[in-house]
């Protein structure tokens, strides 16, 4: 396999792992954000 393709595949794997890590790190922040954000009920204006 060409070196450039190997690096691209490696980069794709790193991107997916990074996404996973970011999601884990931001778990608490998401739960706070989800709890505190303003919501509007349809038909209740």
């Amino acid at each position, binding site marked *: 396999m*060409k*070196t*450039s393709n190997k*690096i*691209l595949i490696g*980069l794709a794997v790193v*991107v*997916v792992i990074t*996404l*996973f890590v970011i*999601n*884990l790190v*931001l*778990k608490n*922040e*998401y*739960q706070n*954000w*989800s709890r505190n954000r303003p919501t509007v009920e349809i038909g209740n204006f």
Partner: protein
Amino acid sequence: MKSTININKIILQLKQYFLENQDKELMYWSIMALIFTLIHQEGSFLFILSISGLIFAARQFKAFGHTPSGIHFLMIPATQAEKIITAVLLNTVYYFIMSVVTYTIGNLLGSTLFNNMMSTQAEISWSLFTGEQHTIWSVLISFISTQAIYMLGSLIFIKHPVRKTILSIIAITVTLYIIEYFIFQIVFGNETKLADLLPFFTEKFANPDDSFYKIITLLIQGVFAIILWVVSYFRLAEKEV
């Protein structure tokens, strides 16, 4: 495979480019200055910079689309590393500096003309440099990473590199979005809504007040650009006509 870097050879390649394209470049930047005279808002500059920059970068290695030109390009007495550095200097440094210079000229001319025609004394807006929404450095780093993507696209796709690179980016983005959705569900559980995904991450990473995430985003973009330059180097070294 030789990978030495000689500054003189890079300068020679740049000189050759400007000698071969001086009329075209002069015409192109005059048109850009005219466009910026007519439209000189910060948002228009960012839009024009990204669209015109991607076309410039994606056509960087157009020589490979035509076999004799491709052979001629590979025969240029410079190492592949020197050719990639020259390409990066042209599509990133040169293009960005020229865009900012033409924008500055266009903004000055346009605002002065508008003031004279309308008999007003409106102040010239320099929001691009004063950093009310984006700083010039964050624009530069985003530009570097997108140019690196399109330069690699021009090496991967021989025919129609612009449209094929754009289509590939759309396909990769959709795939990443789907992967991210599954990761989101694994980490946060099934009660997570798909509609939550974009607003949460946009608020987190695009928030101009949160400097920590802004720095992380810029750092990722910078590292991403360097990796893509390395991939471009290997792609060029492996190139066959």
